[in-house]
C-alpha cells in the first residue's frame, strides 16, 4: 500500500486531500466554539453563521470569569479531578505492580472482575450510589465524587500501570533485593523513577476522565457552590440559553485543562493505550 501510494501523483493528491478532510473535521467544531466565544454580542445574531467574524473581543471571557460562578465551578472541578487522579494513580500503581510482579491465587478472577466493571452499564449503580451517599449524608460533597470516580477509574488505570511495569525488567529490582534491600526499597529506589512516565500518563488519563464526567455529578450534586464544571455549564445553558458568547467562552475555558493534559500525554498515547488494549 505505501509503495503504491508513492508511485502515482494522483494517489498523492488524494492522500493529502484526505488528510485535509480529517484535519478540518477534527478542528472545525473547536474553531467554531472559539469563534463564537470571541464574537462581540452585537454581532452574534447578524453574522452568527459567518466563518470569520468582522470584530473580535475578549469581553465574554471577562464576564464569565468575573461575573458568574464559573471560577467556583472551575475550582471544584480542578479539586475533584486532581484528587481523583492522585488517589487513583496511587491505588492503581500498587495494584498494577501486584499484577505485574506476582502470581497468586485469584489473580485471574480479579482481572476478570476488573474487566467486567468496564463493560456493564455504570448507570445501573447510579440509584444505589445516590441512596448510599444520601444515607451517609455525603450528597453535595466533593469528597464523595472523588471516591466514586476513583473506583470507576481504578480498573483501566491498573491495566495501564501494569503494562508500564511489565516494560521494566524484573532483574533490576531483583538485583537490588539481592543486595539486601527489601522489596519496598527496591520499588521506591529502582522501579519508581523508571515508571514516572507511566505515572504521568495514568494521571493524565484519569484527570481527563474525571474532568468530563457529567451524569453522576448531576445526580450527586445539586447545590450551586459544590457544582463541578460540567454540571455548572449545563445548568447555565438551560437557564440562560441566549448568552451564546458567554456559554462558549465558558466552554473554551473548560477545554483548557484537558488540552494541557492531552499535550502532556500525547507522547504516551499510542504506546500506552495500545499495549493496555492488546493485553486487556
Amino acid at each position: 500500500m505505501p509503495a503504491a501510494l508513492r508511485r502515482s501523483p494522483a494517489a498523492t493528491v488524494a492522500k493529502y486531500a484526505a488528510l485535509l478532510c480529517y484535519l478540518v473535521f477534527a478542528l472545525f467544531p473547536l474553531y467554531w466554539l472559539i469563534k463564537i466565544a470571541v464574537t462581540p454580542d452585537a454581532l452574534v445574531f447578524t453574522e452568527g453563521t459567518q466563518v470569520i467574524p468582522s470584530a473580535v473581543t475578549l469581553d465574554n471571557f471577562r464576564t464569565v470569569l468575573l461575573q458568574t460562578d464559573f471560577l467556583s465551578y472551575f475550582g471544584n472541578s480542578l479539586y475533584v479531578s486532581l484528587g481523583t487522579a492522585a488517589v487513583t494513580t496511587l491505588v492503581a500503581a500498587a495494584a498494577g505492580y501486584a499484577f505485574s510482579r506476582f502470581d497468586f491465587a485469584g489473580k485471574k478472577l480479579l482481572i476478570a472482575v476488573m474487566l467486567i466493571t468496564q463493560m456493564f452499564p455504570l448507570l445501573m449503580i447510579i440509584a444505589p450510589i445516590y441512596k448510599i451517599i444520601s444515607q451517609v449524608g455525603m450528597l453535595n460533597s466533593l469528597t464523595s465524587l472523588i471516591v466514586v470516580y476513583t473506583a470507576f477509574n481504578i480498573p483501566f488505570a491498573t491495566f495501564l500501570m501494569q503494562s508500564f511495569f511489565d516494560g521494566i525488567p524484573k532483574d533490576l529490582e531483583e538485583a537490588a533485593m539481592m543486595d539486601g534491600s527489601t522489596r519496598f526499597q527496591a520499588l521506591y529506589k529502582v522501579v519508581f523513577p523508571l515508571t514516572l512516565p507511566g505515572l504521568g500518563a495514568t494521571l493524565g488519563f484519569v484527570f481527563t476522565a474525571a474532568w468530563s464526567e457529567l451524569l453522576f455529578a448531576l445526580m450527586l450534586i445539586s447545590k450551586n457552590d459544590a457544582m463541578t464544571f460540567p454540571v455548572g455549564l449545563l445548568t447555565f445553558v438551560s437557564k440562560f440559553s441566549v448568552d451564546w458568547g458567554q456559554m462558549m467562552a465558558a466552554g473554551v475555558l473548560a477545554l483548557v485543562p484537558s488540552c494541557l493534559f492531552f499535550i502532556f500525554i500525547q507522547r504516551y498515547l499510542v504506546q500506552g493505550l495500545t499495549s493496555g488494549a492488546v493485553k486487556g
Partner: protein
Amino acid sequence: MEGRAVIARATKTVVPRRPRARRSLYLQYLVEPFAYLSPAIVLIGTVILIPLIIGISYSFQSIELLRPFDSGWVGFENYAALWSDRKFWIALENTFFWTFWSVSLQFLLGLGLALLLNTQFFGKRLFQALVFLPWAVPTFLSALTWAWLFNPVIGPLPHWLADLGILSEPYNILGDPELAIWGPIMANIWFGVPFFAITLLAALQSIPGELYEAAEIDGASAWQTFSKITLPFLAPMIAITVMLRTIWIANFADLIFVMTGGGPANSTQILSTYIFTTAFRKLDFGYASTIAVALLLILLIYSLIVLWLRKKLIKI
C-alpha cells in the same frame, strides 16, 4: 527493617533458618500481592460491586423517592411494566440504531485515518496531535459544541445542509424527530474516530514490513496488499475493539442527554438515557434499575454471541 536484618544476620548460626524462610516465602506469595491490591479491591467492592447487587435488587422493588411510603418488594411487577412500556421498545430500537451507526462510521473513518497515519508525509507529528484532539475534549463539551453547530441561529450546519439541498430550509435537525438522532451520532463519530485510529494504528505498526516488500516484488496491487495482508492481520484487533466499543457506546448516555435529552418525542431516547432520566428526573429508582438490568442482559447476550462467533471463526 534494617535493624531486623542485622539481628537476623547475627543470630544466623544459632536460630535454625528454615521456618523463617518459609514464613517469608508465605508472606511473599500469598499476603504481599494482596497488600498492594487491597485498596483497589476495597474501593471496587464498595463502590461498584455492592451497589451493583443492590441495583439488581432494586428492580424487584418499588422505590420512588417522590412517594416514600409506597416502597417495598413487588416481585416482577417492574418487569411486567417494562414489557408493556412502549417507550422501552422505542428506546431499544433507538439503541440499536445509535450503536450500529456510531460504531460502523467511527470504525470506517478510524481505519482510514490509521492507514493514512501509517504512511509518511510532511508534518505528520503535528497532524497526528491535531486530529487526535477531539478525543481530549470533555464529552459534555463535545455535546454542547455540536448542539450549537446544529443551531440555525449561531451554527453553520443547517445553512450548509440547506444549501446542499438536504434540508428544505435551515432548521435545527435536533428538533426534527426524523433526523434528530443523527446529531448525537455525528458528535459521537467526531469524538470517537481518534480512539479507533489509535488502536488500529498500533496494530498496523505491528505488521512485519517484509510482507509488504514481498508483495511489492510479486507485483501485488494496492487493493490486493490491503485485502490479503493488512486486513487479515488487523482482524483480531478489529474484532476486540469493535466489540468493546459497541458495549461502551450502547452504555454512553452523555451526548444524547446533553444534546436532545431523549427528545423530540423520544426519537433519540436510548436505553441508557432512559435509565438516567428515569432515575434523575422521576427519581423512580426501582424502574430505572429494571431498565438497567434489561440493558445488562442485552449486552451480555451480545458479548456471548460475539465470543461464540470468535471461537468458531478461529477454529476454521
